[in-house]
């Protein structure tokens, strides 16, 4: 469905060049939900913005490819890419109140999205919008359609955003932290809704999140990012039970559990103002070797788990040198 290879994105700022994505590669298969997980500054949001062609100056995608249904999104001219965005790739934004236009009523926003991808008369647009709003669980769709974003609660507004993303029946949905801005009890409802709609429509989804729980419970595969690189990738069921990269391990161990001493990961994320040489995680890694200083680890398949398609970017013999999750 989507195959990203060696993606490189940079930003030119007053402080220097920020190397935000440095050779990011991953795949999203048919009917698969893939989570990109990482802390702030890991390049996860930059990665999806790059794939969708949303990077604007002073940022630029300087290398790599993103094949979607046989076309490279990164090489597509603006007009052609625009017809894919919104129609064949839906986008769910993080904060619905940031995303929805506060001045246009909801119906006008449905109309604009529909008309951006073809002709349609008002009645059809309204009909489709009403149907979509019902499918995302909005009880009074007429009232919502005639109203404005600020009249909605957070959960309702996010449902509207989801309806807009799915309006034209996209085969791939990209979601950027879709529940971070919502209340805890609303988050679960929205996640259940999104996952249900994806599964039932046999769509694929790429979801960016910093919440390991979201990945564990809703994703099939996970891409773990650190410092603008993918450090580990594979099925959630195995990656989260037997992490092979020291960073993935440390992240999972940093989740507080009652009755157990917390195992904090020391140090901080490096800034991306210089092109990283060597493994970016080495300063915080308990198992770093001299080789990690100078050589950037390539992402490679892990031999014994190969049928499961697990890859990791680490110089260690990860299966033997990286301890299991439960062991201290």
């Amino acid at each position, binding site marked *: 469905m989507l195959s990203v290879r060696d993606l490189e994105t940079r930003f030119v700022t007053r402080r220097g060049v920020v190397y935000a994505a440095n050779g990011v590669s991953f795949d999203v298969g048919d009917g698969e939900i893939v989570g990109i997980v990482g802390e702030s500054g890991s390049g996860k949001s930059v990665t999806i913005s790059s794939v969708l062609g949303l990077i604007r100056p002073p940022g630029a995608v300087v290398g790599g490819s993103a094949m979607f249904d046989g076309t490279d999104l990164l090489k597509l001219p603006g007009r052609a890419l625009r017809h894919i965005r919104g129609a064949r790739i839906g986008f769910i934004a993080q904060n619905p109140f940031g995303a929805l236009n506060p001045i246009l009523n909801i119906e006008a926003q449905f109309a604009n999205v529909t008309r951006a991808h073809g002709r349609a008369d008002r009645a059809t647009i309204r009909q489709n919008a009403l149907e979509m709003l019902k499918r995302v669980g909005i009880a009074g769709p007429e009232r919502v359609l005639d109203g404005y974003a600020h009249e909605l609660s957070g959960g309702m507004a996010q449902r509207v955003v989801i309806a807009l993303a799915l309006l034209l029946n996209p085969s791939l949905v990209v979601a950027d932290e879709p529940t971070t801005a919502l*209340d805890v009890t609303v988050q*679960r409802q929205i996640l259940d809704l999104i996952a249900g709609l994806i599964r039932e429509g046999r769509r694929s989804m790429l979801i960016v999140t910093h919440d390991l729980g979201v990945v*564990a419970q809703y994703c099939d595969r996970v891409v773990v990012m650190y410092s603008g690189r993918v450090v580990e990738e594979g099925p959630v069921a195995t990656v989260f039970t037997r992490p092979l990269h020291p960073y993935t391990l440390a992240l999972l161990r940093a989740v507080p559990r009652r009755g157990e001493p917390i195992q904090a990961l020391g140090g*901080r994320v490096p800034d991306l103002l210089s092109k990283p040489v060597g493994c970016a995680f080495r300063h*915080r890694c308990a198992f770093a070797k001299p080789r990690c200083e100078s050589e950037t680890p390539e992402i490679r398949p892990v031999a014994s788990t190969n049928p499961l398609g697990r890859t990791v970017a680490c110089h260690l013999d990860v299966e033997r040198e990286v301890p299991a999750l439960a062991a201290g």
Partner: protein
Amino acid sequence: MPLVDLRNVFRSFRRPDGSSVWAVNDVSLTVEQGQTTALIGESGSGKSTLGRLVLGLLPPDSGTVSFEGVNIAGLPRPEMRRLRARLGVVFQEPYESLNPRLTVGAIVEEPLIIHRPALTRAERRARVDQALREVDLDPQVADRYPQAMSGGQQQRVGIARALILEPSLVVLDEPTSSLDLSVRAQILELFGRLRAKHGLTYLFISHDITTVEYFSDQVIVLYLGRVVERGPTPEVLARPRHPYTQALLSARLSVDPTVSPPHFPMTGDPPSPTAFIPGCPLVGRCPLEVSECSKAPVPLHAVGVGHEVACIRA
């Protein structure tokens, strides 16, 4: 005597359009010396307002707020200012709570300048160095400005400032929610270590049940400005009696993919805080709702040792 004792506290805010928001609605609670009491709730639950009431940064509309046995609600300003030496606070946004025009040293030193005027400059400097070391910062950072530091380091500066006078109560207002997971663990670990070392009393405000479970002795669950359930943390989280507490617990997603997500019982969003709710605030979202629920507020009643819940079905 509890360190903090709130009795029937009300606090509302007037919105510019004339409507009122009942941020805190008839709340009574205590914080015991040496314990960590957690206030948990979603946005609009009144948990941050409660924190400010306890700190004396906001006066209550009615009710009493006692700290060390003194009602601080009506305290004259100079006395209140003196009392503040025994109250520390750490805010959610580490960067915003540090003055960008002061060095780290000046920030941590400020409580000493205000409350320990007898100290010499060198003595203050020594205390600042020690406070920075306690939070695992190199004393050399005293010359730096907060904006040159990472979020985790900034939060450490905030903690050093809150603890330098060795306060009897520290209010932690979502101190880790704007931090990354790996940094969050470091800060939680630091709070735990400082608590053990100095026997601190924390009032811990959070919306994250995982952190609360890990970190607190007592938990108070708030919904729309009211206490819906409270008790010892292990007891409340193991046997939640209020549907809202149950919803909060099942909204928590395990990082273990082999544990399937629990059934989530609730629907809808929290209602508008300006709406007048005669009965249980959960009406409309609750799976156990019966017609009596919407008639009158449900008082807290005991369901176990120290475990109280405000639900007629519990």
